[in-house]
């Protein structure tokens, strides 16, 4: 039983990490039909900046978080200006894929060249000692991840639901032209969604850092898995990423324990394929009827 609960908590924490990263795809896809294929590298940058400031230079935790948010904003702006805006204007369907991939290659290798190729420890501000209840150990950071991931998703979704600018974002994702008739600047909304997505990625970077360690390659696998997670839930459904994250996170944990560690990833991907065969837009996705 303890084992089961231990796996459950680990799976949930892992799932929430995926969900948080996946949420970044979700936000930009709904406004612009595109997303950052190098999202994982933005997460990595957040982790690296956090490590340099918080661990290496001992600046206060909150100041570091603020700095990481600023880095996220800056990177989001650069990404938007150099890759997204030109790609959305270009007629090629693949432009945004290639542009964001190229951006990620540059980012990752800049970090490798100008910083380090190594992986570094990032001490959790909550300490590394597990909390032990019965025979189940939980890292404080795992609880923090679950809480913060839920908070961010709920906060952003509430922001979209309850504030006027949030509603404008929903309006743009639903119908760009009509939204602009309301006086909503759709270009700015798209830029905003990329900024938000980048900031969340960078925050996710410092959030997962104590679990994953910090290094230039920390985001690669996360980025791909999170892509799957966002699709399972439905790319256009905010809360869908939470369910998608749980499905993948838990299926990994339980497969590794009860089936085979080597096949850990397989059930998650099988579920993904099966879900999409029956629900082509993901679990919470809206199926759009195309008019001829």
């Amino acid at each position, binding site marked *: 039983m303890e084992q089961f609960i231990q796996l459950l908590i680990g799976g949930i924490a892992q799932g929430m990490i995926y969900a948080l990263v996946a949420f970044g795809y979700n936000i930009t*896809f709904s406004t612009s039909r595109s*997303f950052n294929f190098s999202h994982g590298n933005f997460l990595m940058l957040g982790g690296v900046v956090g490590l340099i400031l918080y661990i290496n230079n001992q600046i206060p935790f909150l100041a570091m978080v603020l700095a990481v948010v600023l880095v996220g904003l800056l990177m989001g702006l650069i990404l938007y200006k*150099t*890759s997204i805006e*030109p*790609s959305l204007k*270009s*007629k*090629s*369907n*693949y*432009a945004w*894929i*290639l*542009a964001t*991939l*190229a*951006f*990620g*290659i*540059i980012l*990752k*290798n*800049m970090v*490798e*060249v100008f910083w380090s190729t190594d992986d570094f420890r990032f001490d959790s501000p909550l300490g590394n000692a597990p909390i032990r209840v019965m025979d189940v150990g939980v890292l404080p950071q795992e609880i923090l991840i679950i809480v913060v991931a839920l908070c961010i998703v709920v906060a952003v979704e509430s922001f979209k639901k309850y504030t006027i600018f949030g509603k404008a974002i929903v309006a743009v994702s639903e119908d760009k032209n009509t939204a602009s008739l309301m006086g909503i600047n759709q270009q700015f909304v798209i830029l905003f969604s990329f900024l938000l997505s980048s900031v969340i990625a960078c925050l996710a970077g410092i959030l997962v850092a104590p679990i994953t360690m910090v290094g230039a390659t920390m985001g690669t696998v996360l980025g*791909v898995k999170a*892509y*799957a997670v966002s*699709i399972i839930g439905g*790319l256009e459904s905010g809360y869908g990423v939470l369910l998608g994250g749980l499905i993948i996170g838990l299926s990994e944990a339980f497969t590794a324990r009860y089936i*085979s560690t*080597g*096949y850990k*990833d*397989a059930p998650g*991907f*099988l579920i*993904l*394929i099966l879900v*999409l*065969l029956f629900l*082509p*837009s*993901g679990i919470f996705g809206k199926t759009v009827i195309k008019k*001829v």
Partner: protein
Amino acid sequence: MKTKKIIYGILLLIPLCLPQVIDNQYYIQGVFCRIIIYAMLVASLDLIVGYIGDVSIGHAGFFAIGAYTVGILTATQDLNSDSTMSWFPHLSFFSALPIGILLTAIAGFVLGFPALRLSGPYLAVVTIAYGMLIYTFINEQEAFTNGTKGISLEPLQVFGIKCSGSNFLYVVYPFLVLVMFVVRNLTKSYWGRAFEAIKYSEVAASMCGISKSYYKIWAFVISAGIAGLAGGFFSQLDAYVAPNTFSYNFSVEFLIALIVGGVQSILGNILGASVMVIFPDLFSNFNDYRLIIFGLSLLMVLFFMPKGLAGFVNLVKKRFATKQDSHHAEALSKKAAEVVLFDYTNAKENHTAVQITDLTMRFGGLVAVNELNMSIKKGTVHGLIGPNGSGKSTTVNLLTGIYAPAGGAVSLFGQSIAGQSTYKRAKLGIARTFQNLQLFSDMTALQNVMVGMHNSFQANLAAVCFNLPNAQREEKRAEARAFAWLQFVGLQESAFTEAKNLSYGQARLLEIARALASNPALLLLDEPAAGLTAGEIEKINVLIRKIKDSGVSVLLIEHHMDMVMAVSDEVTVLDFGKKIAEGTPAQIQNNPAVITAYLGTHETSFH
């Protein structure tokens, strides 16, 4: 023409002399052979990404199946003495290769099914998942694959002749030529046109009689098969296969290579593969900054050559193309003179072309078409009019099988067509044009019409791939016939213009030509005059009369009342999905219900 072919044949042989010219294994085997193998994989990816229009990030999986099948089947125990492999069939390379292709093709067949329902980022993630599953399977099935340790292979020998090192070129190069030959023939045939048609507009493709499932799944099978072939050779490149080669990143790299090289182009495939192979070495002097520079170059290519390297080259080439096209057009017009249009056999002895009985369609709570009864007499033009949202287009979509009705029946020449899918109805003799143009925009006018003739092609896949004489003859006949159709609508001057470069009026005419090319018994014209000038509308009027005189029944939906009244034999008026009037044009014009529906209130109330 003959001498040209011989010259090209000789040119094709030149790369085989390279090992004599450049006596350096690095360039021949390390670079050139690698480019050849990667180019085959990029070409296979191009079939999916460029022609079908789906993004695949899982082609490394197919590549892996090919490489591993050949690896397992040809491995020897000597070189893998410490392996966990328990099965060494010791096949020769060339008997293992077809098995690899077959297995990969089967894997492609399996991936084809999700591809029918999914698109965009949803399908892309399935391809990733698929690639990962293949990777995991190879990694874990140690009894077959030696797991992560990989399989070492003997250097390739054919009939006892050493084919590793520079000699490897003699083995792979002919296959590159073969693959490119097949891909070129396939993509330039009615198969390739079907692939592209599906990409631009599934509905228009199915109205041309193209079954999306059939062609899409075949595209995945063929693409996978080629990837398997490339993988088979890859296993011999370093005579070593290990699973970690075939990762997600590998798939991504090939996608990058394809886009950088330029889609839908054999030259692009080869250039993309070359970039992938040569770039790292070219930049090795930049040492650790190499990948940053690589990333920057990618962005540059994207912004300055949005169609890839090949697109850039094609721009230059296009300047020489015009003269050839005019020669070609001249030749075609000679042949087109002998073509007899309107030789359809679909029309049966029956006075009613279409009988619609109690047809009903609902969208949610909205009743778009409400118990509609209507019949179209053979060889007449039947107008269908009504204010916006009255259910005209829905009726057309019900007739063509794009929507399934909530109730009622439709029969064509006395035969029920209920439940038939769109492409089958097209085969039965229904053709249509679209209110919002659905042309295949990157194809020429001639090619668009040839897509319309899809059902007339009979050459099988093998004949098409190898451009056998029957396929060649058929293609040439079709070209002449398509040209004749263009002449019929007056577009012969624009035969080699891409559809996207036609004027709006020309595009409307082209849609009619494409619809006629399928030899329909019933032609549905959905607002053919929308957006046209008076002169252009007059042209279409003349055309409609000509079509009618040839015995084709026409259902005309139009807002230009002058036109409807001028060409229709009978007019049906819809409002809120219901038939509110039917009769001759003159009767309709004076029908009070019609006037109310159109102008708002009964006219007489103001008198």
